[in-house]
């Protein structure tokens, strides 16, 4: 088994909820996301269907940007589930960066289940044109 875990490292890993310790053993799911780069900033788009603004938590520290979100919808009383494809598990996404972004100016917007975050680059890493004299 240990050899197998060496070959396939993800099987030996903890879920983020476990390794954090403070959270209960609710399994978290990694949402679909996309990172784009422009000369001025990085744009992150995360699909978080069923998440409202109050159930969403964004934290940025030590070069880690963490998104944790839970679904606010619960199956109402009297509803029987006939067929299910979606998952009630919470969302958790952790991205690491090298602090070349301006943490004060991170801008986030949640609309129709899609979270868009823009990370402006710090002045030092922006491309600069140097005029030739």
């Amino acid at each position, binding site marked *: 088994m240990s050899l197998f*875990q060496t*070959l*396939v*490292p*993800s099987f*030996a*890993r*903890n*879920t*983020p909820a476990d*390794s954090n310790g403070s959270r209960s053993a609710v399994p978290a799911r990694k949402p679909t996301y996309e*990172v*784009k*780069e*422009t000369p001025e900033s*990085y*744009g*992150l788009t995360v*699909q*978080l*269907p*069923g*998440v*409202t603004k109050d159930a969403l938590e964004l934290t940025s520290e030590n070069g*880690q*940007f963490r998104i944790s979100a839970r679904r*606010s*919808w619960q*199956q*109402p009383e*009297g*509803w*029987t*589930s*006939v*067929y*299910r*494809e*979606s*998952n009630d598990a919470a969302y958790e*996404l*952790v*991205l*690491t*960066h*090298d602090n*070349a*972004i301006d943490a004060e100016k991170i801008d986030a917007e949640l*609309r*129709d*289940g*899609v979270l868009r975050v823009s*990370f402006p*680059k710090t002045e*030092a*890493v922006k491309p600069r044109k140097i005029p030739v004299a």
Partner: protein
Amino acid sequence: MHFAAPHGHPPKTLNKTNTTMRIVRYSYPNSRARAFGPAFSRTPWSGFETEIDRLFETALGDFAGNRTDPTGFPVDLFENKDHTHVRAELPGVNRENINVEIVDGFLTITATRKTPAEGDARSENSFPMSRSLELPEEVQADKISAAYENGILTVTLPKREESKPRKISVTVK
């Protein structure tokens, strides 16, 4: 092999231009990292491990229940006494681009996600998605309503009177 700078200093300016991959995928600490502490967490193999993980995630995607068909989306079917409810996860779609149809007891949800042109993408990007599911019972097709909230579409379909469970009281003489 590297070139020494004239006064023995490394060429610092070169590092600043390297701006690729600022945001990288988070990789969870593995058993080796827990055993040897944070100093050993970046093993020479860590990049390779990520590659292996990615390979397995792609290969096992079907078994893990992940939807691999990109034109689909997860759909749930619920029932209560008077209604059948269908919930579909459609994040980031405008209401006018969602279409709900009922033909012959099949409910079809069609949606188009439109991403506006920005950055290097010159034209608007449109991505059609569609799901079809058979309804378990007869519904009143003219009384169907749909709501879209937080990226989830909920279609409420009232059941036909005859398909509702009926209580018949029989008087025993």
